[in-house]
C-alpha cells in the first residue's frame, strides 16, 4: 500500500517536523496514530513524518486554560484527571467513544481534527467549549477558533487550547452519541453545556452537533434563544425543535437525513435534560 514511500522520519522537535514538512513539498504526510492515514492509503505519499516523538503529547492546565498537545491520544484524554474534571468530563467521554481500545491507544486529538470528519466525536465538544487550535508553519504560529480550522498542506497542528468553562453547581454538561452498534461512527452526536442562575434562568448555553452538517456546528441561534429564559421541559423542547430546523443532515448508507434530523432533536432533548439534572433543575 505504501510501497512508493521513500523516507520515514521521526522528528524530535516541532521545528524539525515543520522543516521536514516544508521540504516534502506536497509529497509528505504527517502521521501520528495512522488510523485515518493508513486506511486512506494515499498512493502519492512519498515521505512520512511521524510526529509522535516531537514533544506534542501533553495535557497542561495553567491559569484559565487547558492546553492539549496534538499527539495526545484519545486514551490519554479519557484517562486524564484534568480532562475528566473539565466541563463535566464531556471531552473525556467523547474521546472514550472514538473506536476500540486499539484505536484509542494511538488515535490523536490532532489527527482527529485534521481529518475533519463530519461525524468526529470530539469536534462538537471542542466547539461547545470555545476551543482554539494552534498550528505552525515556517512563518510562525497561528491560532484559530476550532470552527475555522482547516488542515493545510504545509502547516502542523500543534495544540488545542480550551479556556476555563463555566463552573459551579449550577452547571451541567452532556455528551450524547447515536450509533448502530456500541462501537460506531456517530450517526448524530451532541455536546451541550448549560449554566443557570438562582432562579433557574439560563445564563450560558452551548449546543453543538456532529454528523448533521459537513462539519460540526454550534447552534448559536438556539443558544441565544435559551439565554435569559427559565430552563424547563418546554424550553428544552423548543430548543430541540430549533435544532431540528437548523441542521443540514445528509442521507447516506448509515442513516437517512430525516432520521438524523429527528434524532438531533431527541439527542438535544436528552443532552439538555442531563445538563438540567446536573445543574439541579427539576424539569
Amino acid at each position: 500500500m505504501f510501497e512508493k514511500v521513500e523516507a520515514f522520519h521521526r522528528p524530535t522537535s516541532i521545528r524539525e517536523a515543520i522543516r521536514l514538512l516544508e521540504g516534502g513539498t506536497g509529497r509528505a504526510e504527517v502521521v501520528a496514530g495512522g488510523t485515518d492515514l493508513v486506511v486512506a492509503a494515499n498512493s502519492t505519499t512519498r515521505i512520512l513524518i511521524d510526529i509522535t516523538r516531537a514533544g506534542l503529547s501533553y495535557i497542561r492546565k495553567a491559569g484559565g486554560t487547558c492546553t492539549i498537545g496534538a499527539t495526545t491520544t484519545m486514551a490519554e484524554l479519557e484517562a486524564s484527571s484534568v480532562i475528566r474534571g473539565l466541563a463535566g468530563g464531556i471531552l473525556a467521554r467523547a474521546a472514550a467513544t472514538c473506536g476500540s481500545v486499539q484505536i484509542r491507544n494511538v488515535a490523536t486529538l490532532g489527527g482527529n481534527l485534521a481529518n475533519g470528519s463530519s461525524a468526529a466525536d470530539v469536534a462538537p465538544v471542542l466547539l461547545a467549549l470555545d476551543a482554539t487550535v494552534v498550528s505552525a508553519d515556517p512563518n510562525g504560529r497561528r491560532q484559530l477558533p476550532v470552527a475555522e480550522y482547516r488542515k493545510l498542506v504545509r502547516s502542523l497542528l500543534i495544540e488545542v487550547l480550551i479556556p476555563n468553562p463555566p463552573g459551579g453547581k449550577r452547571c451541567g454538561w452532556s455528551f450524547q452519541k447515536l450509533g448502530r452498534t456500541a462501537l460506531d461512527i456517530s450517526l448524530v452526536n451532541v455536546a451541550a453545556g448549560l449554566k443557570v442562575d438562582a432562579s433557574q434562568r439560563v445564563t450560558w448555553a452551548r449546543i453543538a452537533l456532529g454528523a448533521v452538517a459537513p462539519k460540526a456546528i454550534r447552534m448559536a441561534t438556539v443558544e441565544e434563544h435559551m439565554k435569559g429564559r427559565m430552563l424547563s421541559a418546554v424550553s428544552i423542547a423548543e430548543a430541540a425543535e430549533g435544532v431540528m430546523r437548523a441542521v443540514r443532515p445528509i442521507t447516506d448508507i448509515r442513516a437517512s437525513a430525516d432520521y438524523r434530523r429527528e434524532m438531533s432533536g431527541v439527542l438535544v432533548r436528552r443532552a439538555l435534560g442531563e445538563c438540567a439534572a446536573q445543574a439541579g433543575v427539576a424539569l
Partner: protein
Amino acid sequence: MKMMDLRVTVNGRPRAWSIAPGELLLDVLRREGFFGVKRGCEQGECGACTVLVNGRAVNSCLMFAAQVEGCDVLTIEGLADNGKLHPIQEAFLDHGAAQCGFCTPGMILSAKALLDRNPHPTEAEVREAMAGNLCRCTGYLKPVEAVLAAAARVAEEVGP
C-alpha cells in the same frame, strides 16, 4: 527504494531488521515469522492483528513498522513462558473460548493488556477491552468468561 534499519524488542528479544520505510508493522511481523499476528481486514476494524506496543494494545495493520523503533512489542508467540502457558491461554482452553482460533491471539493480547492495568475487571470492562476484537465463531461469551477466570487465577497467584 532505500531500506532503513529498525531496532525493536519483540517478545523480550532485541531485533535488528531491515525494512522499507512504508512497511506496516503487521507485514513486517509476519514476514519475520510471527504468524500468530493475523491479517483480517487491514483497516483497523477487526483486531485480528492486535499486538502490544509498550504494553498497549494496537492494531498492527495501521502502524508503520518504523513507528516501533526502540519499543517493546509483544506478540502471542511471546506470551507463554518457555512452553508454560499464560493463565489467559489456559483459561481459553478450559472454557472452550477458542473455536477457529483466528481472532484468539488478538483477544488474548487485549485481555493481557487489560489485566496488566486492571487486575480485577468487571464483565463490562472485559467486554470493552475486547470490543475491538471481532469474532464470528464464539459470540464472545466463553472468551469473556475465560478472561474473568484468568483474572481470578492471576490474582490468586499474585496473592493479596
